């Protein structure tokens, strides 16, 4: 019997075990697939989930608020502002302006117009005058930079580009400043009062004695070197000084007047300009300048050049009266001394937006002057004189129209006339 039972177990036990395991697995799977017990309905579950979402959203909101508060907090809490706290930005700006470097400033100047008469050329013509790009920048409290690039038309219809000025300036205070670079020389008054940019000057064009040396003028008006300038402690007299040491000008036909990188000789030009702007006559400036240089002519002969200029100008909102006179003295080491004389007077008065003006210019250079008298070596100067009459109308403080008549007499030719209109503007 016992043997029989053992045989039965041996025969059926594996089957039973496997069947039991299958039964357990199926039962478990069936249990897992059964619906939720009746203790939690679907609506309750949904509500629980919604509550949980709301709870999480609340936590996120609290965290965000905490983050924002920490980001706007400053080390010191803001001082209670007075009720009508005005222009807080302006207060910040003025502090910055006194301490931090200014931004780059950029201005453009241009002029264009129409010319008639032999004074300007063989035919009546529209003319593009100049396009001037002018930039200044405060590099630090005491150091600034200035750059000016000029595009100007020539009589051969080409447009030339010229680095007109490039200066690095150190200004200690009102009494001392030093600059180095390419400059407009401080000869007399006009050259540094108006520079390029016809918009600023009342008339169309400059007085004959101040025509730029790279456009037929005879004075050294552009140069490279060092400039020292400032006020002289003088109370209400208002004395100012400018002292320049420069390369001096090149000499010879077709030579670039400003010696930009190569000086023709070792001697440097020096120029001193002293002026007074007395406080008791606002707008008045009187002064003089003296410049000396040695020029080397084409034969390598040294010519001493001395240029004294005297000026008295008056500028007010209504009146402008400019007067300058000069002598250019040329002398070789041996031989006679030659004097070229020149002057101009310019008067204008403003009437609202209109400013009628008048100018008379005169230049007379000896025919045998070693610098101005030899047409094979340099453009001959001779005698040039005549009046200019015109009217300026300012549309606003950025644009003006000028209408002008010129008459010019020269040594060897009959007097010529010209009329011109010009729009001059800045932006």
């Amino acid at each position, binding site marked *: 019997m016992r043997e029989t039972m053992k045989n039965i177990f041996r025969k059926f036990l594996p089957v039973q075990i496997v069947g039991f395991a299958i039964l357990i697995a199926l039962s478990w799977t069936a249990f897992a697939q059964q619906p939720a017990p009746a203790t939690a309905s679907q609506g309750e579950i949904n509500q629980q989930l919604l509550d949980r979402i709301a709870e999480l959203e609340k936590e996120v909101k609290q965290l965000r608020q905490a983050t924002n508060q920490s980001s706007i907090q400053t080390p010191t809490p803001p001082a209670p502002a007075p009720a009508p706290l005005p222009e807080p930005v302006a207060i910040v700006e003025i502090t910055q302006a006194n301490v931090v470097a200014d931004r780059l400033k950029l201005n453009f100047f241009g002029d264009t117009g129409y010319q008639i008469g032999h004074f300007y050329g063989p035919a009546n013509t529209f003319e593009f005058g100049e396009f001037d790009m002018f930039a200044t920048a405060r590099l630090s409290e005491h150091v600034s930079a200035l750059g000016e690039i000029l595009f100007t038309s020539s009589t051969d219809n080409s447009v030339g580009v010229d680095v007109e000025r490039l200066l690095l*300036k150190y200004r200690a205070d009102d009494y001392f400043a030093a600059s180095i670079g390419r400059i407009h020389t401080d000869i007399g008054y006009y050259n540094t009062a108006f520079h390029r940019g016809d918009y600023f000057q009342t008339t169309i064009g400059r007085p004959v004695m101040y025509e730029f040396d790279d456009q037929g003028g005879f004075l050294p008006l552009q140069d490279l070197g060092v400039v020292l300038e400032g006020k002289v402690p003088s109370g209400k007299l208002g004395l100012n000084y400018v002292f320049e040491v420069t390369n001096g000008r090149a000499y010879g036909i077709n030579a670039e007047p400003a010696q930009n990188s190569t000086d023709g000789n070792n001697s440097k030009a020096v120029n001193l300009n002293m002026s007074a702007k007395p406080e008791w006559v606002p707008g008045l400036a009187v002064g003089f300048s003296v410049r000396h240089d040695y020029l080397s002519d084409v034969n390598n002969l040294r010519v001493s050049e001395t240029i004294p200029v005297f000026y008295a100008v008056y500028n007010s909102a209504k009146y402008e009266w400019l007067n300058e006179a000069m002598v250019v003295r040329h002398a070789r080491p041996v031989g006679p001394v030659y004097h070229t004389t020149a002057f101009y007077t310019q*008067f204008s008065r403003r009437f609202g937006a209109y400013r009628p003006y008048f100018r008379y210019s005169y230049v007379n250079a000896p025919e045998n002057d070693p610098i101005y008298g030899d047409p094979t070596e340099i453009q001959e100067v001779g005698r040039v004189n005549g009046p200019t009459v015109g009217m300026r109308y300012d549309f606003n403080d950025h644009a003006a129209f000028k209408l002008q008549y010129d008459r010019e007499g020269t040594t060897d030719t009959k007097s010529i006339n010209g009329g011109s209109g010009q729009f001059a503007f*800045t932006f």
Partner: protein
Amino acid sequence: MKTIQTILLLMLGILVFGGAIEFATEPVEAATGDPIVVIVNGANPVDDLSMGELKKLFMSDRSKWDTGKAVAPVIVVAGPAERTAFLKIVCGMNDADFSKYFLQAAFTGKSATPPREVPSSQGVKSVVGSSPGAIGFVKAGDFHGDGSEGAIKAVKVDGLTAGDSSYKLKM
């Protein structure tokens, strides 16, 4: 001689012609006579300035006070009568001349910085009160002078206060 005569005639013509234009175009301005008060920071020891000194300060012709502080002029933006009157009396200019002056000064290489502009008299007072080197001006009605406006004080002009009858700085 003939040239001189021509010059004189032309100059006379300019004056006559220009006078006629001016007569036809010059606007008529009514002066109310309200004084303009020049104010500086309370820490500034200056008490009296001449018209010439004021002009230098506002036209960037003087860069430092005697104390060594940088001069920082502040001015209300174009429009109010006190600005127009101040520029006319002190600088001899209108707004267009004033802006052109600084543009030309920059063009000639001068270190001229135009005054800081703010929208209102209140702004002028705030800036002057917060900057030791600042100087500005407001019309007398906008200046109380009782210390309630912060660290600012009025200065005399040519030795006169705004209340004096011969005070020149008036609208």
